[in-house]
């Protein structure tokens, strides 16, 4: 910046003007009025934001059915589509939950708490995750059966040793 400044041929500096006393009143009045207006406005906005926050919180509910439908459509055999759909139905809710504060930052307001909204938001996404987990279990991807752990079974080594033969 310094380099560019020094290269500049000319510079305009506007004089610092102090606030004009005369205009104070009207401004103050206007401010008074506008404060009232803003207060009314603010209460309206808050309600609106509150409502909007609920809407935001409930929005993912619509996608549950979509996820269920997709999961159903992809069938119970393990192939690329069923795996992709399962992975997406995991990733999307997790992503959404991680960006929770970001989503609700627009609706931040000191006058109310967004905690219920957020909880509801998380809960709905958790439902999606549960559907995805269920889908995994349908696909047999969950290590819930004995066969999934059979590799842990040791091949037993014999304590004793014997060798034999048939005599000719």
């Amino acid at each position, binding site marked *: 910046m310094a380099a560019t400044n020094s290269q500049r041929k000319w510079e305009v500096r506007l004089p610092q003007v102090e606030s004009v006393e005369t205009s104070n009143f009207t401004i103050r009045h206007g401010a008074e009025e506008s404060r009232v207006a803003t207060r009314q406005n603010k209460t309206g906005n808050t309600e609106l934001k509150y409502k909007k926050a609920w809407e935001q919180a409930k929005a993912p509910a619509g996608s549950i059915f979509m996820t269920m439908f997709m999961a159903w459509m992809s069938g119970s055999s393990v192939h690329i589509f069923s795996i992709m759909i399962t992975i997406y139905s995991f990733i999307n809710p997790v992503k959404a939950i991680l960006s929770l504060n970001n989503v609700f930052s627009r609706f931040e307001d000191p006058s109310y708490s967004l905690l219920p909204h957020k909880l509801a938001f998380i809960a709905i996404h958790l439902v999606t995750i549960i559907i995805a987990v269920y889908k995994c279990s349908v696909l047999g991807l969950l290590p819930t059966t004995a066969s999934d752990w059979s590799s842990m079974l*040791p091949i*037993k*080594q*014999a304590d*004793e*040793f014997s*060798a*034999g*033969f048939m005599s000719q």
Partner: protein
Amino acid sequence: MVVKIVSHAYCARMFPRTSYGIPGTSEIRTRIGLQSDTTNKSPWRRRSIVPLGCMHGVLKENSSKTIQNVGTPSNAIFHPQKRAVYVSTDSNVLAALSLKNGDISEIIYPPLILILSVWRRVFDLPTGRLIQKGNVLLLTVNLGRELYLLDNTEGSVLWNLATGSSPTHHTDHTFLGDIDGDGIEDLASLLGDVVQLRSGRDGNLVWKSQIQGGEGGSLTADATSLYVIRSDRVFKLDIKSGQVVESSVEGKKGKVEAGGISQQQFWTAEGGRLYSIKLDSKQWSNHASLKGEKVSNVEINGNNVFVAAQAENQIQITSVIDGQTSTENIVLSSNVSTTIPLNKMFLNAYNTKEGKRGYRVLALFSDESLALFSGVPKESGSLEKQWNREEGLSQLNSHVIVDLPDIHVYTRYMREVGETQDGLLQGWLHRVHAQMTQLREFVSGGNGVDSYSEVRPYTDPMGFRKMIIGVSRAGKLFGIQTDSSTVVWSNYLGPERCGQPKDLVVVRKSSHFPPSCLLICSNEKKTDLIWFNPLDGTNLTVQHLPIHYKRYITIPLSVVEEEKLGDQRLISLIDDDNRIHSLSPPSVKRDISDAVLTSRRPITFWHVAELNESIVRGYTVGQQTRDHFESEEVWSVPLGSHGKSEKIVSAAYVDVDNAIASAARILGNRDALPKYLNRNLFAVATESSTSIGIYLIDGVTGSIVHSTVVPSATGPVHMKLVENWLVFTYFNLRHNRHEVSVVELFEQKLDWKEVDSNRTKFSSYQHAKPAVLQQTYILPVGISDITSTITVKGITPKQLLFATTSDQILAYGKNFLDPRRPPKEKITPEDREEGLWPYDPALPFSPRSVITYHRQVKKIKSITTHPSNLESTSVVLAVGLDLFFTRTAAANSFDVLNPDFNFFALILTTGGLLVATVFSIFASRKADLSRLWK
């Protein structure tokens, strides 16, 4: 890499009849069409002839190798016009060997097509005398009880008949002129005291007459009469009617066995002398005494008579030429024959175009190698060796498959040993050369390297190349490299160094260079231990023990203990008095192996199933005395029930080296069924008059884990015990068919607490009895041996290999023989998910399951499998009259790219992407720069 077979088997007939009625008629057909690719001492570049209409049937790649043998000849006849020598051997083989190179299969030398009249015919019963005339051969089979007339070009049977003679009868046969007027030469036979004349067309009897007096005798004929020549009398028979005129003769004692007729005289060699008798005289005349014990046949060549006898290192040929007797000494010019005694020889004399006399000597040596020496004797008397066949390979007493060492292990060792003494550069070049060869092999898929002239004692990247070590019944060791199917080294030990060859054991594996093998031979007085390097037969050390050998046992060792023994296995011999002798390899002190065995004493047991008895005994290692350990009997199991006598006929043991990948079997409902994995388990089969019994016995406690009786069944019983299952075959008498049964053992319940490492041991004393599943299937053919494939990690599903009595190898996946296969109507989706097929008693015979393809591997006695470096693939060796080596992938070659894989497209795509990436990097940089300038 992968053998691709496209319905090959529709062309080759899989199960030709080999019964002696019409012995292997279809073999002739296959002989014309399809050839085995490699035999002994043959050039590598051999290609199968493609039969008409069978083009797609020939294997895309030849991964299997065959060595065809004929056995040791008992009779031989030369046929110079056909450029063949016909041999009848003690392996029941009649073969026409090429005089040129000793081959029994035609070779196609592209582009020249040269078909020789060589062939081989295998009989079920012992083959005997051989007589030829014109284009036909007469062969006696089963001690003269059967006659076969064969065409000598193809070896096809023209007719055969039973003579009705008893095995004690002396028999002789000769061809006569055409007597019955059908245009074909007729045949006279002497069977004891009966002379028969048979039609040459169909073998029908023309006349028969009885002679009396004397014994033995030789049959010979001139234009009008037939003569039976015995040592004390001559019978003259009228050729048309068979009327007998008898006359007594003098001058010779002993039997007249065989001979020939020349100049109205009958010639025979007997008791070290050459005799002749004029057909119309009454006196034998003694022409010459033959020096040497081994006397050849009497060779008649027109008016000349020749006979050879071996005298020390040379052969004396006695010849009677125009009535003049003379002798000639010849030497068989062979570097080995001077040390290896001659067993038998067959002589043939001929005149060259220049009018010189040449000889052909087919010599059989004590090491069962068969060699042809021929030519005009040089001034020194030496005859040139034409070819050599190792017929000991037809009678292998024992054999093992040895891994070749890794190339790095090999070259490092060579440097250390200093065998490449030419310094660093030479060593480096040697290594580069070896690696280049390996690279070429790798690129060509392990198979395509043309030059097999050099011996490469290191493995290929896939581990398909192995070394087969075999010991023949005569006591000759062979090292055979499988890729070229050639004997790369051999060593005849002789009766002093090796009595009766019994067992071959790999003592040190190739991962610890140099590997070491042990051959155990024994006779009544002593046991011979021969240690050697299996890769080249060097470092041969012979030890003798004054014990009577029974068998050996191998005791598994920990890594530390193995290091003490120089990475070698601990082999212990059991003698007839059940004493245990722990062996120490030449490089290891005796005390160490004794100490190792002493430390293992309380937990080491051994057991013996006595053949043809009905008891199994178990012993433990007892007190050590001066040079051996005593055995203490700890258990004995009498087999059989209700006082029925059952005889042990077969036993099967778990192969401890066989890797197990999983301790449980996974079911369709995702449950795990734990396997009963008892490495001390062994199986014994017994046979009684009406049934067979199968017993699974724990080798430590002697408790019968499971037993089953198959009623109305008989042997031979073949068994294979792998992991937790046993497969056995028998013959079902009631239904007249071969059956195979599978017994699978599982733990009663799955105990997850076992995962806790404290309980990973299996003690025979505390273990609960297993749950048993069993199913039986019908086999399409008779079986001569069973084995199962072995892979490196044991992950690949097993495949069962059946050697059939029709000279093929059938491979069935273990899933065919699965006792969990449910009945067809009860099959559930879960069963399907588990991969279970509905139970079908008949094992399907699919041509694709024949892993010998179009070849016949004659008289397979045993099949052995060995892992390759690839988990998917194991190598298979079948040993019998022939040797056959191939590889099999039970679950397809999942770890190898398909040969159809489009490498070009892959390289093109990868290269294209690389270029595109580089280009786009430049392009984006340029774009960035130009954007900045805007």
